[in-house]
């Protein structure tokens, strides 16, 4: 499942699942460009990927101009990205009755509207290449719902709907669009939970453990491969059996 010669763009690659995705795609031979919101984050990505030809850049996915500038510089330096992994995301959790309008807008903008922008920015290159892979990182809560996350769940469910529509639009150009919906994965985001939250979580995971970032990255790497050419519009759950909708 070699990705030799392909340029891949992974948003939010400085830590967690995104970092692991960038690493696995690079190991499979892709030239991986990872984005971060800070210079320090971008440098960290460069340190991790430079031995395999990849590098980090600063990009704000909530700003169309920043995305266009980033894609332009990647294309000039390395060639047009034909693999896009939309991984960058944020949470602003609160019960709806306490949620501020800004918390709603920020999450929809960063987690959903950003994917519209990045996908649009890379589409010309993919259409010309007659080959492309877009992989959107969703979440188990898109299907399950989760109290305190109306904004996040709405954005992620939106991502899955967008995945299906864009898959149909671009299928006859050799471009596939899929989502991966992780459950509870061992990252900074879940490390913040206390013991009681952790125990409650474990009780709903049939596998009886958290997932590893590598286990999400492996599915992304498959979807990015030539072998996955006939899989499109799909959302693949990676959640240890906690939800199968």
């Amino acid at each position: 499942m070699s990705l030799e010669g392909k340029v891949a763009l992974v948003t939010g690659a400085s830590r967690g699942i995104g970092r692991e995705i960038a690493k696995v795609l690079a190991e499979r031979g892709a030239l991986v460009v990872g984005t971060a919101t800070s210079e320090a984050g971008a440098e960290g990505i460069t340190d991790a990927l430079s031995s395999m030809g990849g590098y980090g850049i600063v990009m704000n996915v909530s700003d169309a101009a920043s995305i266009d500038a980033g894609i332009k510089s990647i294309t000039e330096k390395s060639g047009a990205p034909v693999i896009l992994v939309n991984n960058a995301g944020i949470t602003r959790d609160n019960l709806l009755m306490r949620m501020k309008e800004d918390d709603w807008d920020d999450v929809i903008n960063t987690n959903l509207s950003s994917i519209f922008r990045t996908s649009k920015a890379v589409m010309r290159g993919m259409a010309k290449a007659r080959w492309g892979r877009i992989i959107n990182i969703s979440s188990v809560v898109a299907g399950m719902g989760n109290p305190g996350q109306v904004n996040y769940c709405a954005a992620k469910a939106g991502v899955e709907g967008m995945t299906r529509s864009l898959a149909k639009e671009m299928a006859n150009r050799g471009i596939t669009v899929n989502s991966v919906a992780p459950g509870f994965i061992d990252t900074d985001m879940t490390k913040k939970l206390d013991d009681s939250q952790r125990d409650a979580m474990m009780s709903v995971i049939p596998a009886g453990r958290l997932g590893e970032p590598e286990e999400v990255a492996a599915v992304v790497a498959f979807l990015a491969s030539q072998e996955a050419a006939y899989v499109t519009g799909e959302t693949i759950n990676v959640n240890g059996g906690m939800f199968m909708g």
Partner: protein
Amino acid sequence: MSTVEERVKKIVCEQLGVKESEVQNTSSFVEDLGADSLDTVELVMALEEEFETEIPDEEAEKLASVQDAIDYIVAHT
């Protein structure tokens, strides 16, 4: 140096996979040459690159025939 007409027709042939003999100035991309909506978007992209110009979306939507494209290019480059 080829004329605008020749260059436009060449791109139409490449993008839509039709023979030169099928492409008349009056040919409609959709009705005569079998283009779907995505084909027409890509055709505009290819014209933009060939003639190093940007065709705004609202103008691109009006380009229905080979002659429309030729006229637009002649007027804007």
